[in-house]
């Protein structure tokens, strides 16, 4: 659905209001949607996702050829891809980059133990072999944070000193707390054909893209209304009515964008007790939390399943434990856990995502009603990410995730993720899920996993929510996405 060529204008600069500042610009080492959103413009991966969330090639010529036993991946690279420093991308760069990813990236580390070999077959072919089959590998390689980005072999220090990627835009200047300035990379070789989600052709209409950190959600709204930002990310849904009918901006609703969750500390503290986790599960009222966080019902769905309707992974297994809002039952469980009613349960949350904070506040009231002493720790997102790594510092933290194409990508499932859900039964299911290549069997495995999740309550899924953003009516060619990207977008004069 490419708009008529005539209307596509080359040139222009857009300001994108993002929700905060980034601690680092290395999407391999760190995770986070914000990081992925920004860096995907200048760092690219071998694969990416299309509109239907299927893995599709990006720097790779085509999808990998997988051996019948599912253990050997042969990846053919595109020819003529150059880095921002002018050098050509070769298999050598890819191998080095993938090694870096396997060592440093949280998602890479999932694969690392399973790795049997990684080598360049020729200048444009890379072969990766596994000890055991691993179904989600291609999806992992397609991800934009904790991402397997391809860097020039000589320029991959940790931390990164230079930001040399292959993307359609390149980093020109970064002023902390002020802006990240990207300019068009003229040596970019787009894929043939039409754009398709993150895949397909990436067109470079805009001269410049500026990501401006605007941590205050309200300022993002006001800035959008005033026309200062061409795109404003993740706005409070309450602003929808205000954005409607403005001449300098328009609301952009992304239905079933993702799901907020309360992650419990399974490693240290009170929440390691199953009864406590079950108590939280029993106490929370998802309706209220969602209503408080997202306002009108059209912005959220009260749903306990890990995938919304329409996804092949959808199942209701275990969800009878969801959205109970039953303080009495919770109290009993709390009592059973031997909790003294005094030891503070620390809920770590951030205001950068205002809905996290609001859900935290509602949850706090429900949990108090269940007899827990709640201590809300409100920090900025960067701090939260830092702190959650230390099991001594928190009991519950709040985060959210988009609906990911493969359950293997769901961040909190592996035991390495802060929360440390480390359960032999789960590990077994997860390994099986990853190793299984048959889709039907995988769905069955996932159903068991979801049921186990509700039994063990390592985390609490709050529901599904829609995301609100705003964009200038002049900004065309933009496709709504959980990680907004601005290649293919252009400004109407």
């Amino acid at each position, binding site marked *: 659905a490419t708009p008529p060529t005539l209307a596509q204008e080359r040139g222009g600069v857009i300001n994108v209001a993002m929700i905060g500042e980034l601690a*680092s610009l290395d999407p391999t080492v760190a995770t986070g949607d914000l990081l992925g959103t920004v860096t995907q413009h200048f760092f690219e991966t071998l694969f990416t996702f299309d509109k239907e969330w299927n893995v599709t090639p990006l720097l790779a010529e085509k999808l990998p050829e997988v051996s019948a036993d599912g253990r050997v991946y042969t990846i053919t690279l595109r020819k003529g891809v150059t880095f921002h420093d002018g050098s050509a991308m070769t298999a050598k760069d890819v191998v080095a980059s993938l090694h870096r990813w396997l060592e440093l990236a949280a998602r890479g580390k999932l694969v690392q133990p399973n790795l049997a070999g990684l080598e360049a077959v020729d200048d444009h072919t890379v072969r990766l072999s596994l000890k055991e089959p691993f179904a989600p590998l291609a999806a992992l390689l397609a991800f934009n944070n904790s991402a397997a980005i391809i860097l020039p072999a000589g320029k991959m220090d940790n931390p990164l000193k230079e930001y040399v990627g292959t993307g359609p835009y390149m980093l020109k200047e970064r002023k902390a*707390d002020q802006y990240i300035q990207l300019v068009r990379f003229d040596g970019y070789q787009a894929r043939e054909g039409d754009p398709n989600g993150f895949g397909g052709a990436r067109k470079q209409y805009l001269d410049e893209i500026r990501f401006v950190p605007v941590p205050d959600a309200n300022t993002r709204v006001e800035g959008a209304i005033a026309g200062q930002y061409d795109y404003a990310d993740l706005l409070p849904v309450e602003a929808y009515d205000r954005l409607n009918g403005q001449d300098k901006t328009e609301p952009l609703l992304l239905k079933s964008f993702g799901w907020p969750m309360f992650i419990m500390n399974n490693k240290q503290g009170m929440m390691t007790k199953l009864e406590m986790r079950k108590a939280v599960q029993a106490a929370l009222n998802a309706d209220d939390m969602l209503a408080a966080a997202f306002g009108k019902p059209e912005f959220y769905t009260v749903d306990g399943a890990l995938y919304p309707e329409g996804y092949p992974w959808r199942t209701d297994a275990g969800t009878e434990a969801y959205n109970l809002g039953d303080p009495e039952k919770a109290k009993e469980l709390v009592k059973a856990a031997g909790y003294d009613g005094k030891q503070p349960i620390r809920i770590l949350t951030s205001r950068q995502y205002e809905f996290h904070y609001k859900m935290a506040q509602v949850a706090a009231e429900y949990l108090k009603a269940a007899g827990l002493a709640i201590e809300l720790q409100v920090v900025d997102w960067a*701090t939260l990410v830092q702190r959650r790594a230390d099991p001594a510092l928190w009991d519950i933290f709040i985060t959210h995730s988009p609906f990911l194409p493969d359950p293997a990508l769901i961040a909190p499932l592996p035991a390495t993720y802060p929360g440390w859900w480390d359960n032999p039964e789960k590990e077994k299911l997860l390994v099986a899920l990853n190793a299984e290549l048959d889709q039907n069997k995988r769905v069955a495995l996932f159903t068991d996993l979801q049921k186990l999740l509700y039994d063990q309550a390592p985390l609490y899924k709050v529901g599904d929510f829609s995301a609100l953003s705003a964009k200038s009516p002049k900004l065309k060619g933009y496709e709504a996405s959980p990680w907004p990207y601005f290649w293919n977008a252009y400004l109407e004069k």
Partner: protein
Amino acid sequence: MTRYILQRLLGMLAVMFTVVTIVFIIVRIAPGDPAAVMLGPDATPADIAALRARLGLDQPLVVQYLFFLGQLIKGDLGQSIFLDMPVTRALAERAEPTFFLTLFSILIASAIALPVGILSAYKRGTLFDQAVTTFAMFAASIPSFWLGLVLIQVFAVRLGWFPVAGYGGPDASFLTRLSHLVLPAVALGVVSSALITRFTRASMLDVLNDDYVRTARSKGMGEFRVVMRHAFKNALIPVLTVIGLTAALLVSGAVVTETVFSLPGVGNLVVSAVLRRDYPVIQGALLVIAAIYVLINFGIDMLYILIDPRVRY
């Protein structure tokens, strides 16, 4: 005069030294190991031990203090934890908006406060005077962040006269950047004009009762000249002090205002640093801002030389 300058200079250095000491103490009263706090929870014990050694935290307090002084003299304020750059650079990069914001606020505040204060003192007891006094007190009661919110709503969102937030992009011209400062400067300026107005009024009242003002009148001089030439110039001396003080206080207002207007200035940096537990940045900002305050005061002391012959002597 040299004596005066020397005296002030020594005084300034003494205060500076105490400021440094206080900052040193503030950082030490933070509970827990400063190195651990500085490095954040991700740090390994080895990292922490290394930093402790680098900062000399394993040394006795006196040695630590001397080390801290030594680093300062070298102009080293440490390394930001979050921003991955030296604190000095982080501060320098953010100096411009804060500097101009402060400057404009002071100009706005003075432009309002001086004439109004003078007139209100001159017409003391009248309705005008009462109105001014009440208004000044009212203005001083408005939280600057609240006023900022109101100004954004009215002038940026509804009327669209000024940008809502930020400090312009990479190629923003100086003028564009300044246009970002108008609303915050007004928000700060109005609030601080209250203080200056009241002070100008009080100072003028003092001076207007002085004998030499009566002498000037007894010469047959017109009122305007009496007030401007004989009263205002004399009243200016304490007023200048307050303007200087306000300039420094504005930095504190800037902390709030910059946050409201998302201005990438020192104030914003401090708030983010607190939220990110970036202690070296907090420490550095405290030091630099206090130093600026001390310098401004010193500058005003030096200005006195121009205005007041008594100190020249």
